[in-house]
């Protein structure tokens, strides 16, 4: 068994695709229609293209508990998932210039540095750097 996919629930797949590729820098890998305007839409990290795929799934629009869970996480400031970066400070600066909103500015916690931003599709996402 291998871990090759992680999924992120999004409200609007097209908007998410734009945000994750244009602002965050992911690359589109798979995009196929699933009917009813839904897509199997995956991305990969540009610096690790054979790494796990990120599935942008339209769960919150079709499954109420998914939407509730996503809303509650957002309300609690809790990240849905996290991405590894070389420098949290550098990414914070780069993304802020692109208009991305951070709910937690770069902070230190022991052997970690982290920051949390809003992906505009219903999720908080955490950036981490191991010190």
């Amino acid at each position, binding site marked *: 068994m*291998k871990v090759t996919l992680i999924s992120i629930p999004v409200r609007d797949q097209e908007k998410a695709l734009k945000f994750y590729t244009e602002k965050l820098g992911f690359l589109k890998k798979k995009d196929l229609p699933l009917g009813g305007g839904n897509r199997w839409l995956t991305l990969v990290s540009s610096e690790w293209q054979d790494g796990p795929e990120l599935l942008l799934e339209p769960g919150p629009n079709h499954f109420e508990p998914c939407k509730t869970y996503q809303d509650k996480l957002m309300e*609690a*400031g*809790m*990240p849905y998932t996290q991405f590894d970066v070389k420098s949290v400070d550098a990414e914070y600066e780069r993304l802020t210039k692109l208009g991305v909103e951070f*709910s*937690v500015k770069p902070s230190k*916690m*022991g*052997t970690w540095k982290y920051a*949390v931003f809003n992906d505009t599709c219903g999720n*908080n996402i955490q950036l981490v750097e*191991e*010190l």
Partner: protein
Amino acid sequence: MTFYEKELNRIRTVVYSNERQINTVIGIRNYIENNYDSNLNLDLLSHIRFVSKYHLLRLFKKYYGLTPRQNLMDKRIEKSKENLINGMTVTESCFAVGFESLGYFSTLFKTKTGKSPSEFQKEQFSRSKINLKS
């Protein structure tokens, strides 16, 4: 303050209150990052930070979740991948990242990445050819 920030603060006091220990393990990890290609061992690492080697082992595992040796092996495999992509031979890459046995390197590489170093390299080269064509 959000629920998440409260939780982080709680964890910060429970897990990350000992600044001295944190500085020690960060120092050790940085040393491994910068010297992965030399012959590192627990004795050497513990001398750098003036701590006993068993204490160091425990501390490192406590904060990073793995041992200094596991961390070193991960670093070496990560670097050897870069070297292979940049065109180094398997043998050159093995010694360049600090391994002394080609057999050990190949086995470890396969366990960690799912492919042998030469399979990995072949795949990278064929991929870059595809990129050139498109």
